[in-house]
C-alpha cells in the first residue's frame, strides 16, 4: 500500500480556519473555495474537520458534503459534530468515504462499534488529540482522563478502522511530528495510523512514513507554504518511497 499524503482542512461549518496549537483564529476562506482548490491538486485523500460543531452543539453541515462529493474524484473524510449512527450514515450517503470521530469517541466509545457494524470499520476514523501521554477532547481543551496507548487499543477493539493521531502542542507550528509517540502507537495497534501535527517541511513526511505511518496529515503546511501534496509526493518518490504521483 502506498503512503498517503493527506491535507486536513479545518472549518467552522462554512469558513476554513487555521491557527496554532488548536487555537484556530486565522480565517483562510470559504470551505467551497478551498475544496475546489484541493480537488484540482488531486491529493491521495482529504479530511474536512468541522472544529466548532461539537462546541456549538450543532450538527455537521451535511449539505456541504454533497458539494465536496461533486468536486472530488478521490476519497474524502468528514468529522465534527457526528453524534449518532444516523449522522454517520448521512455523511456516507452524502458522498463521504469515511467519518472521523473525536470528542464523541472519548465520551461514548460504543458509538464506534455501532457505526462500524453498519458501515464497516474501514469507514470509521478515530481522531486522538494528544498532549503528553493523555487524550484531550473538545478541540484539545478538556482532558478526557484516558491514556493515549490505552485508548488506541480500546478504539481498535471497538471497531475503529483508522487512527488520526494528533499532537496539540505541535499543531500548526511547522516544527515536526511527535515521532516518539508515533512509534509507541504503531507498536500497540494493527489498524492504519495517520499522524499529524507539526509538519513543516517535506522531510517530516519522510520520517513518519519510514517509521510505518500509513498516512501523514498536514494543515498549516499546505495552507501557509508553497508546497502542494503532489510536489511532496514527487520529492518522496525521489527518496525511494512508495507513493502515488
Amino acid at each position, binding site marked *: 500500500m502506498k503512503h498517503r499524503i493527506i491535507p486536513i482542512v479545518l472549518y467552522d461549518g462554512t469558513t476554513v480556519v487555521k491557527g496554532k496549537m488548536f487555537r484556530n483564529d486565522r480565517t483562510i476562506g470559504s470551505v467551497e473555495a478551498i475544496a475546489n482548490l484541493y480537488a484540482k491538486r488531486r491529493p*491521495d485523500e482529504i479530511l474536512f474537520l468541522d472544529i466548532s460543531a461539537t462546541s456549538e452543539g450543532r450538527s455537521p453541515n451535511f449539505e456541504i458534503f454533497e458539494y465536496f462529493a461533486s468536486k472530488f*474524484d478521490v*476519497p474524502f473524510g468528514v468529522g465534527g459534530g457526528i453524534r449518532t449512527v444516523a449522522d454517520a450514515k448521512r455523511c456516507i450517503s*452524502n458522498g463521504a468515504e469515511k467519518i472521523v470521530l473525536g470528542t464523541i469517541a472519548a465520551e461514548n466509545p460504543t458509538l464506534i462499534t455501532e457505526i462500524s457494524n453498519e*458501515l464497516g470499520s474501514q469507514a470509521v476514523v478515530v481522531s486522538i488529540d494528544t498532549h503528553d501521554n493523555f487524550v484531550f477532547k473538545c478541540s484539545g481543551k478538556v482532558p478526557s482522563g484516558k491514556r493515549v496507548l490505552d485508548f488506541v487499543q480500546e478504539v481498535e477493539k471497538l471497531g475503529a*478502522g483508522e487512527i488520526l493521531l494528533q499532537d496539540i502542542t505541535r499543531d500548526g507550528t511547522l516544527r515536526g511530528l511527535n515521532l516518539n509517540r508515533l512509534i509507541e502507537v504503531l507498536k500497540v495497534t494493527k489498524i*492504519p495510523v495517520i499522524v499529524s501535527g507539526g509538519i513543516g517541511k517535506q522531510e517530516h513526511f519522510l520520517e513518519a512514513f519510514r517509521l510505518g505511518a500509513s498516512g501523514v496529515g498536514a494543515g498549516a503546511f499546505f495552507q501557509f507554504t508553497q508546497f502542494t501534496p503532489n510536489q511532496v509526493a514527487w520529492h518522496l518518490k525521489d527518496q525511494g518511497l512508495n507513493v502515488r504521483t
Partner: protein
Amino acid sequence: MQIEIIDLGINNLDSLKRALSGMYEIVDIKVRDSGQEDYGKPNLIVLPGVGNFGAAANSLREKKLDKYIKEQHRKKIAILGICLGMQLLLNKSEESSISEGLGLIPGLVERLDSSNGRVPNVGWSEINFSTNKDSRIKINDEANFYFTHSYFANVDEEFVVATSSHGTGSFPAIIQNGLALGIQFHPEKSGLDGRLFLKAVIQDLLYET
C-alpha cells in the same frame, strides 16, 4: 447504452453515476432499488456497496434484487460488482456466516490476515494482471487505485484477473466468471486512472455479451 445501478440505500451513487455518464456520448443510467420495476433491457448492471456483508445481503433479498440480478445474469446481461458489491457476487462471507451471496462467482469472502499487513487495507495501490489469463483490459502500467477493505475474495485461480498486495501477502483485485466481474477497489474514487479503468473493463464485459 443502458446501465442500471443497484441502490442498496447506504452509499452515495453520484461519483459512480458521474464516472459512468462521462464514458459514452449517450448513456442512460437507471437507479434500481427493487426487483419489480421494468426499465427495459439493460446492457450492464452495476452493483456497488459499502458496509457489512450481512446487512447488504439482507437488503438485496428484502428488495427482491437478488432474484432480479440472478435472472438478468441467466439472460446474459453483464454484472459488475464493486467493493462490497464484488463480495456479494460470491457464495458466502466470514463477516456474516448466515447470509448468502449471489453465487455468480464461486468463492468465499474472508478476512485479511493482519500478520501480513495492517487491516483494514486502506490506500492506493497498483494491480498486477494474472499472466495465465489473457485479459483484454488494458491500463497504464503505473495506474493507481483506491482500496479500502477488511475482507477479500478467496476464489480459485481460474477466476482471478488481477491481484494487488496487502503487506507481505496478496489478494484478488479483479475477479471474473464469464459475464460476472468483480472489482475490490473503488474505480469511481480513483481519479482519472479509475475512470479509464472503468471504461476499459465495461468495454471488455460488453464484448462478451
